[in-house]
């Protein structure tokens, strides 16, 4: 040992800090291998425990778990703000500010490091019905630390584990938004208690599916349910449109998946019904307005201990839903929208927070928003949960 004393102390401290989490971490990553993670597209991403980031890769038809080596706990309640995110990413990636597109954002709940999935694509092509994943596949993963330093994650040399998403929709067919259906093979992913919930399109006749994949990835194939939704604004049951964003949630002691779709049904699916090979009818509890694509959904707890759900949208301001209001909606919606109706079902608030695409929990006191500002620039900004 050639450490000086202080170094030795630091090393010991680091060792014991790591040990504090070690048991779970080692179990979760024992099958991980180091090398090229084989990422073809970061379509969606979401953090699990112990700094493990899950990527939904529509192009490869895989879920890839990355050990971000990012397990230093940060209990800060500070806000994080960054102006002109596009300008900064453009400088880093050697492009014009309109030459970079952010596909998804995830905050590591342990460290509060922010991760962005990015591509060098033509942002001028984005539209209300043209999402980043419709323009191209993101293959760049950037990390922003609480000090605002941006670095690139080397996906070619990283500890990882991957599993195939069974029966993903094949490439070569087009959806109504003139994008290849394959770009929606995985539309959202969420980790909850040892399981990944993966929404997207399959190659089945009923294309919209919700898969449950055990993590750590085993030899067991994913469980797989086709999902039907009563679409109030369209006035019909649909099986082809994918869930856009989902959230595992406990309502009155029952584990459900809260999910939303384009144009904008708000539904629940009891996890107990998600049995492999079953066709499941979701329960539509709200219609939040047609002409809109939901982008992200998160749950938060404010400083008074009240829980809530936030949804970001392509064409609407951020929506807040309170769990007690979901429970108040005792009967599912089964009728088409009437001529003079716009939103029906679960009570929800459309907040004074506009221009938000990506949303995630930053820390106990703040949620983080990727937000188009009134001056046209794109900013990362914090919103205090005490105001929610």
């Amino acid at each position, binding site marked *: 040992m050639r450490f000086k004393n202080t170094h030795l102390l630091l090393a010991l401290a680091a060792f014991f800090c790591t040990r504090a989490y070690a048991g779970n971490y080692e179990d979760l990553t024992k099958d991980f291998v180091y090398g090229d993670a084989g990422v073809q597209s970061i379509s969606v991403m979401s953090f699990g425990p112990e700094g493990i980031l899950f990527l939904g890769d529509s192009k490869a038809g895989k879920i890839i778990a990355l050990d971000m080596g990012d397990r230093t706990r940060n209990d800060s309640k500070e806000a994080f703000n960054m102006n002109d995110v596009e300008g900064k990413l*453009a400088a*880093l990636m*050697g492009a014009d500010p309109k030459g970079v597109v952010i596909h998804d954002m995830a905050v590591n709940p342990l460290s509060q490091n922010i991760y962005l999935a990015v591509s060098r694509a033509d942002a001028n092509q984005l539209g209300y019905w043209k999402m980043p994943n419709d323009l191209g596949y993101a293959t*760049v993963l950037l990390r922003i630390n609480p000090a605002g330093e941006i*670095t690139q994650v080397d996906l070619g040399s990283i500890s990882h584990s991957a599993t195939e998403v069974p029966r993903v929709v*094949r490439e*070569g067919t*087009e959806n109504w938004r003139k994008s290849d259906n394959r770009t929606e093979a995985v539309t959202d992913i969420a980790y909850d208690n040892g399981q990944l919930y993966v929404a997207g399109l399959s190659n089945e006749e009923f294309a919209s599916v919700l898969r449950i994949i055990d993590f750590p990835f085993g030899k067991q194939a994913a469980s797989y349910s086709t999902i039907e939704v009563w679409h109030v604004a369209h006035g019909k049951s649909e099986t082809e449109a994918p869930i856009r964003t989902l959230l595992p949630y406990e309502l009155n002691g029952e584990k459900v998946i809260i999910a939303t779709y384009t144009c904008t049904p708000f539904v629940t699916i009891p996890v107990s019904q998600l049995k492999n090979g079953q066709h499941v009818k979701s329960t539509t509890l709200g219609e939040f307005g047609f002409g809109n694509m939901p982008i992200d959904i998160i749950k938060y707890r404010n400083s008074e201990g009240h829980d809530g759900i936030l949804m970001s949208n392509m064409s609407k301001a951020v929506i807040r839903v309170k769990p007690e209001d979901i429970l108040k909606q005792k009967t599912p919606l089964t009728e088409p929208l009437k001529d003079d109706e716009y939103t029906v079902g679960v009570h929800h608030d459309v907040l004074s927070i506009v221009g938000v695409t990506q949303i995630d929990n930053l820390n106990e006191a703040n949620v983080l928003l990727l937000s188009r500002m009134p001056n046209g620039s794109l900013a990362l900004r914090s919103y205090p949960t005490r105001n929610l």
Partner: protein
Amino acid sequence: MKIRIRSLAFLFLLSLPVLSQSDQIQIRLVEDPDDPHFGSILLTGIDTVITAKDIEWKAAFRVYYRAPESDGDLPMLGKYQVSGQSVFYIPSFPLVQGKVYHIRLSSPLPESGFEVSVPVLTTPETPKIEQIYPTSGQWPANQLKFYIAFSRPMRYGQAMEHIRLEDENGNPAEAPFLDLGQELWDPGQRRLTVWFDPGRIKSLLIPNLEKGPPLLPNRKYRLVISKDWQAADGRPLGEDMTREFTTGPKDNDKPAPGDWSLDPPQAHTTAPLMINFGYAMDYAMLLDGIAVYDPGNRPAEGRIEIGPEERSWLFYPESPWQPGRYSLRFSPDLEDLAGNNLDRAFDAAPSKNQISPPAFYERTIEVK
């Protein structure tokens, strides 16, 4: 500002004699495509006393997309590789042809600025079509798609106007291909997938009933690829390429892994394992749709070769075969030329049965 930089440089010159060699520092772009560092920016003439140190190169040797105006401007991401008196900046994202990049050096290098312009490459090589898959001269009448492999990355958005299908009298077929807004290229932009219009292949769908299938059985056809199709750098193919094929009957049978002949290799050799399908399979699916697992149930490493006319698949193991039972796992997405995959025939009536088929199909071989 300028004065400050000069005075700082002067201080360094006084304190660190090694920097008296600063006039030898040179910066250039590695332009030779055969150089393993092609596309990186090379800084040379640094004293090895410096390169031997553990220096934060991303601070000392910064490359900017736009000339920096303030300290807050961010340099481009990249990796740094030190070798003798040289440091390579390897950009995380390829530099753009015709663009000028701005370089700033600072401590422990002398404060200085450089510009590197990236020339517009004019490679003498014209793009070529290397292969059209399937390579066989006979395609089923319900052929689903084909692949065109090019020698160089091609320009996006030109495919449909440069591919033509003619019947034996030279009459062009009417809109036989699926025209998606998005062309289906591999990541290197060198292999294009072209689909025949699936709506016209699948029985009872409206396009099929109205226009008929794109190909008829027992005919001769000619694919013509136009000489005007451009590579990514704008250089056209230069010569028309034609590919003639005849059609056989429709193929509505699922490929059955149980019917394929397997040729187990001998233990302790690295002889290839061969799967003979007995008919042609889809080329691209064969590249990653079959995995070999060793007797310990670990994926075996090796090299894949696809046999003539895509009728066979060979696996050359990296390490010799061990005695025992190897397992071959087939993705359900493996398909034949007509798009029939292991789960179902392309033209099969929709199944009401919602039971999930297996995640993969399996055969085993005994290596002795």
